[in-house]
């Protein structure tokens, strides 16, 4: 169904240079947004804090983020809503990976017991590390983490052996592996915990639901185009600076998820984790944080 928005507004998307954004970029470049009658402006941002600052200041309307981030933003009043998956892990495609430093003597998962894993605290990275290790039978005291929020710092520490292990997102985990780190565990073993989201400010959804629908319809079509012929988009992926330079040649365009949103169970699990960590002291309602009604 073609959406026909009531008024013309420009959706401003704060976009990090990460793989998850490829469908949006494709939709923009191939005129899909125009086709669905939405105007989109892509605002480049350097890092997650800057992205969140733009959203908080109302200077951007949409972004790619994670469920924990959505929950924290909505802790008092609903501010943003997740409207669609951006990327998901599957049983054969990892989003995140725990790697061990070269020479740290870690061969398998069981060696991670009691080892401090470098993570970015209070993000999906910490959540996923915890859940993956629990799933591997780790007891509470055996899971250790140390906070190193910036990916380059984590990579450097891993490379130097300062950190014995670290959780890294793709494609950086591939890069670390190329540089000698040893992959230990990834989210293909439990893909249900691992996904990123397209989120909108709630105000935009409330005022212009049709526009958002149009936006998601365009993304859907872009996703289909990518999945149909991934290699066609590999130059775009490199041009858009979505993969580290050393991987520019070898990295493959991943498969992107079709329309969908996190389930109430996935939401409840993440919420339980955030509460258990003390990051959230309130209860949140699924429908405040996830809005499944805008999908095409």
């Amino acid at each position, binding site marked *: 169904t073609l959406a026909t928005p009531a008024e013309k507004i420009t959706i401003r998307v704060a976009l990090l240079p990460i793989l998850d954004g490829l469908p949006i970029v494709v939709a923009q470049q191939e005129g899909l947004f125009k086709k669905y009658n939405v105007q989109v402006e892509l605002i480049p941002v350097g890092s997650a*804090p800057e992205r969140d600052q733009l959203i908080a200041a109302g200077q951007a309307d949409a972004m790619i983020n994670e469920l924990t981030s959505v929950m*924290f933003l909505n*802790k008092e009043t609903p501010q943003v809503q997740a409207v669609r998956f951006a990327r998901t892990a599957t049983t054969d495609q990892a989003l995140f990976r725990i790697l061990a430093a070269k020479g740290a003597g870690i061969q398998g998962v069981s060696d991670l017991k009691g080892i401090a894993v470098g993570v970015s605290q209070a993000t999906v990275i910490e959540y996923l590390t915890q859940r993956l290790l629990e799933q591997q039978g780790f007891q509470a005291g055996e899971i250790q983490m140390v906070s190193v929020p910036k990916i380059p710092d984590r990579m*450097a520490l891993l490379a130097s052996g*300062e950190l014995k292990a670290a959780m890294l997102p793709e494609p950086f985990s591939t890069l670390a592996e190329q540089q000698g780190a040893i992959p230990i565990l990834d989210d293909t073993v439990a893909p249900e915990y691992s996904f990123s989201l397209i989120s909108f400010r709630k105000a935009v959804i409330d005022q212009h639901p049709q526009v958002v629908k149009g936006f998601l319809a365009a993304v859907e079509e872009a996703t289909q185009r990518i999945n149909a012929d991934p290699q066609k988009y590999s130059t775009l992926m490199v041009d858009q600076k979505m993969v580290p330079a050393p991987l520019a040649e070898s990295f493959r365009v991943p498969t992107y998820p079709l329309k969908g949103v996190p389930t109430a169970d996935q939401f409840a699990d993440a919420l339980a984790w955030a509460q258990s960590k003390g990051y959230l002291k309130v209860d949140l309602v699924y429908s405040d944080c996830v809005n499944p009604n805008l999908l095409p």
Partner: protein
Amino acid sequence: MSRRNLLLAGLALLLFWQGIAMIIRQPILPPPSRVGVVLWEEITRGALGVHFLASLWRVVASTLLAILTAAPAGLVLGQSKRLNALFSPLIYLLYPIPKVVFVPVVLLFLGIGDLSKITVIFLILFFQILVLVRDQAMGLRPELVLSVRSLGAGRLALFRFVYLPASLPAVLTALRQSIGTAVAVLYVAELFATQKGLGYYIYLNGSALFNYPAMYAGVVAMSLLGLGLYFLVDGLEKRWCRWQIVS
């Protein structure tokens, strides 16, 4: 700095803050009253005190380190036209480089402990102090130097009896600037491999948890940390630079 003025300044700031908060009415700038409540809770029940102490130690250590190395270096450069001509291109090349990009390299050499955090702050402060003290020492009245040389002073004694005391006010200024900068830089330096410190606290609450009242509580704590150190410097000035105050 009288208590009354301090109170006044605090009040004015709070009013201003309240005003802005009322204008924008957004969670990213909670009103001071809410922040006050959270601040109190975080101090009494939370761990803000621990964060505060961790940061205090890092700021003091790095500032001392920077002053103790950069001030003498600045004095030496300010004293010797030749050395200054030799080193100033180096300074001018290094100063504008954002030291943050060296964090990974520093981590490589110094590990993830406190030392690397202190080093990062130190690197940022060093050049700032160096340039200030050097410029100040260069501006010394030449007749002072001549008269003391005529009393038998060589380079070392000139350094000790003229350049050093003459630069004390500049060093104190540098100290003031450094405190401001060092505290602000915590926000960068306390991001890696630590769970203590106001920088960490602000980042976690502001950028990961979006708990803005708690973040601002951290900001207020930082401001107070700086203020306390400023009091110290003003005390030192009263002691060391009596001549500037009296005359």
